[in-house]
Each structure stands twice: as C-alpha cells, then as structure tokens.
C-alpha cells in the first residue's frame, strides 16, 4: 500500500515535471537534521523527476548543521538547509548565510494555526507543520494502572509522579516553542508554575528531542511531551503508543532554505518547489514520516483520523503566538528552564513528592496550619528568579547571546554569573519547600 502511494506519486511527479520542462541537473547537496525515513523518500522522488540530478543528503543534527554551515561559509559547498526548528533558520539568517527565495507553489495559506508558514522576510519556507502534544505507552499505563493524560494540566497530578519525560528547550527548538506557548497562554508566573508542577513529575529530561519518543516506545517512562510526528510515526511503526494534542499547543512549520552562494541554485529552487508541489506534499503522509502538509488540499488523501489543522480549528489556535516576544527572551527562557528544571531535577522531584504527600495527607482532614505550610511550599517551588519585564529586556538578553557587541558597548554581567545567582536561589527554595511540606505531613 505504502509502496504504491510512493510509486504512483513518483510517476506522477516524473510526468508533470518533465512535461513542464523544469528538470534540473547536477549535484544538489542538502544539509538536514531529518531522519533517513524522510530524506530517502524525497531523494528518490526528486531524482526520478529530474533524471540529471543527484541529491546528496548530509545528515547532521541541527546544531552540528548550523556549525557546519557557519564554518564552511568561506567556500560553501551546500545548497539547502532543511530542518524543523525555525530558530535554527533564524540563527543562519542572522549570520547572513541564507538567500531570499519566494516559492511559486500555489494553494499554500499564510498561516497554520496562529503561526506564519513562511519567513516574513522570505529567507526560508515552511513545507510541513508540526505541533507538540502528549504521547503515551499503552502497555506501560495498563501495567501501572495509570489514566490517559490529554491536557498539560493532567500531567501535574500526583498519579503521574516519575512517569513523564521531556527534552530541554535549550536542546530542541520545538520544545522551546512548547514551553513558550504555555508561558504566553497562561502568563509568565502562572506558566512557569505550571511547567514546574509538570516537571516535578518528570522521570527525566532527555538530551536529544528524539530521546523522548524513544523512552516512551521502549517503556522507560509512560508519557512523553513530544512533537506530533514522533508520536504519529512511532504509532505507525507498530509501537503500542498513542498521541494527542492538548488544547494549548502551537503549530510550527518545519522549514527549508537556500544557502548563500549555493553551488547549484537552480536545483535548490526546484527542490523547494517539488517539496511544496501537490506530489511533494502527499509524500508527507508516508507512515514513517507523518507530518502535517501545509497545502490544505493534501488532507483529502490522508488516512482517517489524521489531524487536519486547517479544518479542526482547535489545534494550535488557542494561543495567539507572539513571535517577537518569544524571540526577545529566547535565551533567557532556555537558561531559566535549565537552571530550574534540567540541572536541578532531583531537588525539584524531591520537593514535588513531599508536597504531593502532604496534600494527600491533608485531603479530608482540614488543618489550616498544614494547608498554609503547603501553600508556602508550593509558592517557593513556583518562584521564578527573574520577572517577565527583565526577561524581555534587550540588554539582559544579550548577556546570554553568543555575539559580542562592538567594543565600547560594554555589558554588565556574564551568563555564568547570572546563572550562579539563579541556581543558588532556586536550590534554596526547593530545599525550603521540601522542609515545609515535610513539616506539614508530620502534623497528621
């Protein structure tokens, strides 16, 4: 079945493109973070459509891909950069390593959910959408007798303690967007409080974003906060897992952009056009790929139950995502998450467990003093060492950025200095919270 779809699409593509006499030739080098399951399908289809072209796929993780393009810019040999995270493209754009290209493909709307599909400046184009959600392992939750979690708030419940996994926003651009979405949806303080209550139930913070679906697939932990195609393609590969979008999520486009001084610009343009053509979009429905096409018409060919953000307005539309706000405090949010969650997970887990235990003891036995202690403990855990206004300040953010300003504009403070102050405060708060919650428990 799957083979049939691919072959028919390849044939159709070959026909339409050769008729249109668009065929290009020569070597096309693509630097990408996408897995072979995705790249191999497009390589095959594109080469079939352009018999003279050879596609060379260089698989590097997003960060390594950026570094590779930065270091080789002097005599660039890559044509395209093809990856998920829009922020990776922002970094390359900021370094002047991309060229402007406006795709000619028709039928693609401006926005998916609340997010613009293409870079407003035209340096990169979205070809598929993805959103964050919750995936879980059916066998795991059956064996441990756990319920299904459908909303972020569900994951705060004590029953999920030690069963949840997530990647860090500093490691994965899409995880960052999920964190930012909740912060924007609920507000700075409430949003962080929400994240820390969820994180208190984490079993682990994985180093790679793929570590999360991997952990859920193998049953290391039961629930994972993952990007949709990880959940959907795991399910399609036969793992006993399922995936759901919570109400508050953001759909983000996965992108492609042409590298500056590309050796084979015509082929690069042809590849983008192919990706956005009806044939190219249909390939996204391959069971091993499972990404949301940006062309609404493609959904007609999707299997039943495949989410359609252009029809189902509840996906990714609950939050009006403010891109500028996100961009301004990008590094501060990453760093805060690492200081408060990633590097202090043990302390956070201990504090959360103590609070959950005290609350369970309190249930049904009103005790004002204990309730007061628990409330204090929760407030201490929720406390964020910096406020929203500071986090959004340009000067404060530039401490965390890699580029030094020109000589003369001397900045105050260093990242390590700021993080040390945060860390000391956070650690003390978690310890104090644990102590208070234990005191509350001891009253029963």
């Amino acid at each position, binding site marked *: 079945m799957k083979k049939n779809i691919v072959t028919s699409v390849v044939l159709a593509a070959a026909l339409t493109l050769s008729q249109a006499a668009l065929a290009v030739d020569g070597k096309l080098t693509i630097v990408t*973070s*996408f*897995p*072979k*399951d*995705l790249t191999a399908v497009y390589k095959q289809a594109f080469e079939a459509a352009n018999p003279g072209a050879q596609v*060379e*796929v*260089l698989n*590097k*993780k*997003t*960060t*390594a891909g*950026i*570094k*590779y393009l930065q*270091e*080789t810019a*002097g*005599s660039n*040999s890559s044509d395209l950069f093809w990856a998920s*995270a829009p922020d990776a493209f*922002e*970094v390359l754009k900021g370094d002047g390593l991309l060229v402007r290209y406006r795709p000619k493909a028709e039928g693609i709307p401006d926005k998916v959910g609340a997010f613009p599909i293409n870079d407003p400046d035209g340096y990169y184009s979205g070809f598929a959408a993805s959103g964050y959600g919750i995936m879980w*392992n059916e*066998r*795991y939750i059956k064996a441990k007798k756990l319920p299904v979690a459908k909303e972020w708030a569900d994951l705060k419940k004590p029953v999920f303690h030690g069963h949840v996994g997530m990647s860090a926003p*500093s*490691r994965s*651009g899409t995880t960052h967007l999920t964190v930012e979405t909740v912060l924007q949806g609920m507000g700075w303080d409430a949003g962080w409080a929400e994240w820390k209550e969820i994180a208190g139930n984490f079993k682990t913070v994985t*180093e790679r974003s*793929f570590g999360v*679906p*991997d*952990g859920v*697939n*193998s*049953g*290391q932990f039961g629930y994972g906060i993952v990007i949709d195609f*990880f959940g959907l*393609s795991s399910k399609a*590969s036969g793992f*006993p897992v399922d995936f759901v979008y919570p109400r508050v999520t953001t759909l983000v486009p996965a992108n492609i952009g042409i590298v500056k001084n590309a050796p084979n610009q015509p082929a690069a343009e042809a590849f983008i056009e192919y990706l956005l053509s009806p044939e190219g979009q249909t390939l996204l429905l391959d069971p*091993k790929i499972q990404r949301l096409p940006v062309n609404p018409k493609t959904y007609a060919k999707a299997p039943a139950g495949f989410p359609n953000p252009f029809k189902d307005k509840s996906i990714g539309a609950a939050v009006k995502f403010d891109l500028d706000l996100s961009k301004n405090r990008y*590094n501060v949010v*990453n760093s805060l998450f690492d200081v408060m969650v990633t*590097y202090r*997970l043990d302390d956070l887990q201990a504090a959360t467990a103590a609070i959950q235990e005290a609350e369970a003891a309190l249930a049904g036995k009103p005790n004002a003093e204990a309730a007061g202690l628990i409330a204090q403990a929760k407030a201490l855990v929720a406390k964020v060492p910096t406020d929203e206004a500071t986090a959004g300040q340009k000067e404060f953010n530039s401490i965390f950025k*890699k580029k*030094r300003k020109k000589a003369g504009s*001397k*900045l105050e403070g*260093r*990242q*390590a*200095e700021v993080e*040390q102050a945060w*860390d*000391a405060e956070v650690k003390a708060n978690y310890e104090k919270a644990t102590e208070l919650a234990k005191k509350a428990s001891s009253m029963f």
Partner: protein
Amino acid sequence: MRRAVQSFQRGPAAIGLLIALFLGVFLVVPVGKVILVAFQDPNTGAATLINFLDFFRNSLFRESFVNSFYVSAMSVLVASAISIPLAYFTTRFNFGGAVLIQTLGVIPLIMPPFVGAVAMQLLFGDNGSVNLLLDEYLGFTIPFMSGLNGVILVESIHYFPFILINLSAALNNIDRSMEESAQNLGASGVRLFRRIVFPLAMPGFVAGAALVFIKVFDDLGTPLLLNVNNMLAPQAYLRISSIGISDPMGYVISVILVAFSLLSLWVSLLALKGKDYSTLQKGGGGLMRRDLRTWEKAGCYVVVIAILLLVLSPHIGLLLLSFGTVWSFAVLPDAFTLEHYYTVFESASQYITNTLLYAGLAALMDVILATAIAYVVWRTKLAGRKWLDYGATGALAVPGVVLGIGYLRTFHDLQVPFAEQSLASWWVIIVIAMTIRRLPYALRACVAAIQQIDVMLEEAAENLGATKGRTVYRIVVPLMIGGILAGFVTSFATASVELSATIMLVARESDAPLAYGIYEFMQSAAGRGPGAALGVVAVIFVGLGTYISHRIIEGGKRKRESTSIVAQEATI
C-alpha cells in the same frame, strides 16, 4: 665518542620534531582556535581569566566536578575487579577459556553510539527486561541505571578492556625467572601474585587504569544516555551544542577537562616513578602456565562466563533489538524478523569498507606515532620530550565536537593538491581526527611496553655494532610487540565507532563510516531495528578485524622468535 652522541640524538630529535609538528598542526592549533573563547571576556573580548573564576564560584560546576571525579575513581575500581581475574586466568593457566576472553574481551569497547544505549535501557532500565522479571517474580526492582551508580556500571562495563588488554600484555612480558626465583624462595598462590607478579605488571595496570580514569572523566556519551547532567563532560557538551548560544563556560570546562586529564596522567607517572619494572627477557617470556585440575577449570569457567555475560549484555540486547519487531515494555521483543538486516544490507557494504579503511589507517598511524613517542620519551634525553606524551594524551580530553569544529575552522580554506578539494572535506581528515582522538590509547600501551624492556638489551646490541635504527627495528619493536598490538586493538576498535568528531566532518554520504550510518537510522522510531542491525554488523566486522590483526601480529612474533632462536643456536 662525541660523534656517537650526536648521531644518537639527531635521529630521535628529528622524529620528535616531526611528531611535535603533527600534534601542533592537527591538535593544538585547531583546538586552540576553538577554546580561545574560554580566555576572553564574554562582553568585551579582552583576554581574561574571569571565566575560570566563574567556574569555581558556581556550585553546579563544583558539584559536577566532584561527581565526575567520584564516578571516574569508582569506575576504575569496578573495572579492575572485572579485568584482574580475567587477565590472570588468561596469562597464568593453560585454559581453553583464554581465547574466549581475548576475543570477547575487546568487544565491549565496540559499542556503537545510541543503539547500545537503547539496548542497555531495554535490558537494565527501570522497566527493562531484568526489572520486569524481578518485579513479576520477586516484587522488587533494582535501579541499575539511575543516577551516578548507573554511570559507574555502564562505564566500567564499557571501558574495562583498557585494563584487561594492557594488564594482559604486561603479564605476558614478565620474565619467567622472576617468578621461579620467588617460588624457589617459597612464595606461592596469592602471595606470589601480590608480591611479585602484580607489581611487575604494574606499568600495564597503571596504563589501563589511567586510561579508564581519564576516559570516564571525559566521557559524555554515557551520562547523556542516562540523562545525568551533573557531571563535567555533559555540562561542557550541553553548553557548546545548544542552538544559538555558545556559552564560554563550555570551553572553560573543556580546558579544565584537558588540564585535569594531564594532571591525572602525571599522577599515574608519579606512581611508577623511582621503580624499575624492566626485566631482561630471554625469549619465550611470560609467566609459567600451569594446567588446571578439572574442578578448578570448572570454577574458572563459571567465573569467566559470569563476567562475560555481564560485560556482553549490551551486545546481547543489541542482537535482540536487531532481530526483534517491536520491543516495548516487555522482557523480550514481540516477534523476531530478518527484515532489519535486509533494510541495511544495501548501504552496509559502503559503510563497512569506509570504517575498516579509516579505523585501520588511524590505528596504524597511532601505533607508529605511539612507538616513536614512547621511544623518544623513555630512551632519549631530548629537552621537552615529556611534552610529546602530555600533548598526545591531552587529546583524550578534547571533546570530539571541539576537534571537529576546530578542523573545519582551520582547514576549510586549505586546498589539497591533486584531490581538488578542501582538506576539511577530504576523507583523510576523518582518518586524522580518529588518529588524534585514539592516539592516547596506543600511546599508553606502548609506553607501558617500553618500560618493561631493560635498556641493557639495546646497549648489548649496539656494542655488537648494530646501528640505532637497526636496534630499534630488531630489538625494541619486537620486544614491544605485545604492547603495540594492545594499542592497535584498542585504537582500532574504538575508532571504528567514533561519532562526535566524524559527524562534523563527513562532507558526503559516500565517505561516511558506520557510526554515522547508525546515527542516521537512529533518528526515527522505525529506524531503531535497522540501526541495531547495522550496530551488530559493526561489532562483527570490527571484532573480526581485531581478531585478524591479532593473528597477523602474533604470527609474525612467533616467526621472529623461531628465527631468533635459530640465530642464537647458529652463533653458539
């Protein structure tokens, strides 16, 4: 006489300079270009040490430092507990299991990235096979893989071959007469081992233990797989490789890792200082081998098989993963299939050819460099000779990412004549990266070997009129051959699964080695099985390559030994 001294120094001096040049161009300059950031003020760019002050002021970093130190020290202990019995059995007794140990003992080093991690979690994780079984039948679970203890377990299982290989080589180099004298004086059993055999094998043990210590201290794969962040190497990596940020602290930690590795190397040299480990070999070295009684043999087999089962468990998991369909929250995969092997069949041969070529060349260059460095350091009086050793060993602590970025930065604009491309995108750069990264392994083995050779043998040869070169070729190298082999094997096995520098440097698919292929598969849920299949293929081919190089070198040694005996007889 004066002329003799000059010619004595001139050859080694030239070689020493060449090696220094090589290390300078391919290690010091590229790495220096990257870690320069550590010495710059993050705001103004002025030269400063403020970043180092920040490091020691930060409680998270101090905690990480202590954790790294604790894990490294414990790993050395556990790895010694695994490898000392294995090494002793193979060298001391006529024991069929010896071949088993020599062949299978290296395999833990060949741990393909990512897939090995998944296999370990599926077997020993909180919901892995072992714990699921324990929970079902006994009602409790053991957190093998959590926290620092998990790191110690996995690191010891992974790196104990460093001690095993080096210690075995050293034991084989001990002069039998030492043991005989001790026995004549009434020593036997544990006392003989503790007072005579083990102390004489000390250079090999220290070489292995230092490698394990430094390697564990600098290793980032294992803590990351277990999601332990509070150690130095993962802290450096996480800070260097985040999108958009490149925090100088990452490079500061790299500098500290290099410095600390050199410090521990220096301490290990100090431990050997002032003692003479060399023995005059009279051909047919090695301990006396004794036959075992039946029940003793059975006992040895039980111990050896138990240890091998433990240390090979990741590979057993890998094998299951490569044949399994879906393996999720279960003791074993749901069903078995050959499909994953079909999937990788097409691409595998290219990867295998590349890997064997790259790792083979790199290991060859490593043993040549290592033998030369060992000779220059221990047999000459050249000024600054110790720095060759330190410099080469420092490579151990340089994160692969840093070396990869350094190479791109330094060599991208350098065109290779005839190849018509940049040096940074030529496949040879991958070989050089592997050579630099694995040189410390070969070097420790060769240094241990040369320490065990009595310089009198060389003096004797020279008195008989042999030139310096001939002495090295006919006396030193043959006597060092055990150590050289140990170095080749460890370099080859570990180079074949190297990924962190390679992934930065691969510039076209046709140049990619196996580890890169595995990485490509391991990015998606459907790629887990094929990735594991490719991992199994890697283990088999690298294992075979190791075995064959063993045979070739051993064969050469035997031949040389027999001719030398003939020569001896002829002269008599």
